[in-house]
Every structure is written in structure tokens, then in C-alpha cells.
């Protein structure tokens, strides 16, 4: 089997007066440290090799080829992905109900649907060990029994989008979601009373001659 076109057609004739080909501009060197772990075609800095620690860290975060979802989990992965897609669609709808930075009462049905989908995600048997359950608990710790604001919505949107693109779910995923809580200005130790401000003050008054 011929491997090159020249094997079939022969070497192309080059006329003597043909101008010399212009040099092809070289692509700028890109120094990315993920060449060997992920198998991508990326040039590395001359004299620089990725360290073992770096490779281990990348693999731990689920970026290496070792952490591609196994074929046995294909069905679970499909189900997981479907739930994430549903959650994403619901969150996008919910964005239309934000009034004055707070999710309005009209969206109560959507909120209930999202909470229900989170419970379904909790039961989804995908990911390493109990990591997916930890992820859902971390999300719910900020959303349950809270008046949802723009911050909650941004956190939920960020978390769902992060989960959708993850090939696998492991302990690092749960930690990443936990880190996102603070990144979105929420309190990881928020407590039962999330807002202790006085909203309305009532006054009891005796009615004479009732």
C-alpha cells in the first residue's frame, strides 16, 4: 500500500526558473503544560518537562486520559448529562423571573422543579463513590430554605455548567463546587438564619370600644 502521493505520481517537476517558495511563517511557540498527560499535540517549552506532581494533579482533577468515563458507566453518564441539561434549561427559564435582584414568587414552580431535579441528580449512580451526592449536597446547602437572589442563581448556573462539561465526577468536583460558593459571594457556613434584618415592624394597638 503506497504511503505517500509521491509514490504514485512521482516527484513533481520543478521548473528551474520557478521562484523559490516563500518561507512559511512559523507559528508562535505555545507553552502549555498539558501535553503528555492528555495526549494533545501541544509543544512544550524547550528543556521543560511536566513534573510528576503536575501530572498527578491534572489526573486527579479529571483531565487525564485515565479519567475518561469508563464504557460501563455510559448509561449512567447519559442519565447524568440529561439531568444536567434539564437543570440548565430550568435555570435559564428562571433568569426571566429575577426582579430587583431577587427571584420573584411567580417562579415558585420552577424553583420546585429545580429542587426536584437536584434530588434526582442526588440519586443518579454516576461518578466515583459518593462524590455526586457530595456535589448535590454542596449545591443544596446554599439553596434550601433561602430566598433565591441573583447570587444564588449565578452560583447555580455556574455549578450546573461546570458539571455538564465534566467527563467524570470525583472528590475534586465536590471541592470545586464548594469553592464556587465563595467565588459567588455566598457563605459556605451560612447558618439557619440567612438574613436577620428586620423587614416589617408591626405594632399592637388596643382598640377602644370595640
Amino acid at each position, binding site marked *: 500500500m503506497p504511503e505517500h502521493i509521491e509514490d504514485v505520481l512521482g516527484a513533481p517537476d520543478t521548473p528551474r526558473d520557478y521562484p523559490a517558495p516563500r518561507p512559511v511563517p512559523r507559528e508562535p511557540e505555545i507553552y502549555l503544560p498539558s501535553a503528555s498527560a492528555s495526549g494533545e499535540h501541544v509543544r512544550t517549552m524547550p528543556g521543560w518537562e511536566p513534573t510528576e506532581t503536575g501530572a498527578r494533579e491534572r489526573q486527579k482533577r479529571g483531565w487525564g486520559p485515565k479519567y475518561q468515563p469508563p464504557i460501563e458507566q455510559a448509561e449512567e453518564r447519559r442519565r447524568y448529562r440529561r439531568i444536567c441539561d434539564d437543570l440548565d434549561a430550568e435555570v435559564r427559564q428562571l433568569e426571566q423571573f429575577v426582579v430587583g435582584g431577587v427571584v420573584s414568587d411567580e417562579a415558585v414552580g420552577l424553583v420546585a422543579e429545580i429542587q426536584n431535579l437536584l434530588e434526582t441528580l*442526588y440519586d443518579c449512580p454516576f461518578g466515583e463513590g459518593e462524590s455526586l451526592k457530595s456535589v448535590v449536597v*454542596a449545591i443544596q446547602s446554599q439553596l434550601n430554605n433561602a430566598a433565591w437572589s441573583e447570587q444564588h442563581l449565578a452560583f447555580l448556573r455556574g455549578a450546573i455548567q461546570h458539571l455538564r462539561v465534566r467527563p467524570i465526577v470525583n472528590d475534586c468536583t*465536590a471541592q470545586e463546587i464548594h469553592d464556587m460558593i465563595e467565588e459567588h459571594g455566598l457563605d459556605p*457556613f*451560612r*447558618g*439557619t438564619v440567612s*438574613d*436577620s434584618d428586620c423587614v416589617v415592624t408591626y405594632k399592637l394597638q388596643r382598640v377602644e370600644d370595640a
Partner: protein
Amino acid sequence: MPTRVALLDNTVQVDRRKSKTRSCRIEELLSQFEWKVSTSICLLEFKATLIQECITIHDSLRSVGMYTPVHDRLTESMHRQAKLRGHIFQNLINVFAPSSFDVTEERDRRLAEKARLRLEMVIPALYTWFTKKSVDAVLRDEIGCSRALEPPQKKRVAFGVNLPKCEKGKNKFCRVEEFIRAKAATLLERLEAILREGPQERLTQLRRTCELFRSVLQEPGIDLSHNDCRRAGDFLIALEGREIATHALSTNASDWEPICQILQREFVRVDYPAERDI
């Protein structure tokens, strides 16, 4: 060098994580200070109280596997930390049933599982919060408590022993005995004078501190463990932070006022006016 440096004791650090109202009040007080510091012995106390109780709850949830019985047993017992456990259940675990919740065994097991998973996140986060976020510095150069430097770590299913017994050369590399000999010898007289003059029933911890200091000064080969250090916890915290702190903050005025008097530091009592009306 800042002119106002607050030394936070364990009661303040625990209250900052207990409830939102207390946390807000403390942050309001702390805004008057330029720096906030704590010490390795305070971190030891934090591990022995809040983190230890979280681990106890985690272990019970794991072994019993149900939420309500564990909650009831741990918060209604006569244990000295029963109230703290209540705070942990309400404010840190923070798992809630949906409104359509019907108390069945299956649902209760689900809640227990969620609570356990939540604690697996919260316990390391509490340690990280203390060491990296709560204060500007954790002073550990002088004593360098080995137990305080060990973050809580989850093994395969449970957390490892939170505070193993200190054994010199094996797992203990602190300098607590040398520190007490160097610093406390000059303070012992003043400490004994306060114990003679002050109200006896209110100075229990100071008396224990005095006994510990005397035994360290008299026995050259004494080997203290973390339980011994905790007996003199407040005094060691104050001593460890004395060089930098100008003020000491605590909710425990009966122990900290005489300590600050001895060490010539200003004491700021942390109280919660909003809770008086409840």
C-alpha cells in the same frame, strides 16, 4: 506596627461559626482593630471543641445511619457540649427536608446521608477557615503545638483520630514545656496573688493553670499532652499572643479579665445585646 491588634480566643472563634447574628456582632467589634491574631493553642482548642463535635456527629450518623435518633441523642444528652452540637445541627449541617417531607425511615436515612456528606465538606473547611481566613496570623512560633498543625483528614470512611495523645519524639514536636519555663516563672507570683485575693469559685481555670505551671517548673522531665495544655488553655493563648496583641477578645470574662490584668493587656468582652431580649 499597628496600634490595635486583637487576640481572639476560642470562644470568639467558635461563636463566629455558630450563628449569623453572633458572627455579625463579632465582625462589628473586630472592625475596630487593625490586625486580628490567634495562636496555635487556640487552634488546638478549636479542634478539641467545634471540630471534635462535628467528627462525633459524623461518626454517629455513619454508624447509626438515621438523622432524627442521632440528633436527639446527641443534643439531649448531659454532655457538656450538647448545646454546641445543637448549633452544629442547625447552623453547620444545614440539611433540610423538602416541604412534602413525610417522616419515614427511608427519608430519615437519606437526611442522615446528606448530613454526613455535608460534614465531610464542613470539617476540613472549618480548619481552613481558622488557619487561612479567620485571622491575619495564627501565632505558632513560640509553642508550635503539633496537634494544632494537623488538619482533620478523612480516611476511607471516617475521620482519623482528631487529637491523638502527644508522645515526645513520636508525634509531639512542640516546645510547650520550655515555653512555660521561660515565660511563666516570672508570672507565677502574680498569678498566685490573684488566686489568694480573688473570688475562689470563679477562678477554677486559673487555679488549674497555676498547678500546671508549678509542676512544669518543679519536674524537669515532665511531658505534657494536649489535655494538660488545655487545662491552662486561656493562659497559654494569652502568653503566646502577648508579644503582638494589644487587646484580648473573649466571651469568658471571668477567666480572661484576671489573665489580661496579669499580662497587662486590655480585655474586650464579647457580648450579644440582641440575644438579651429573647
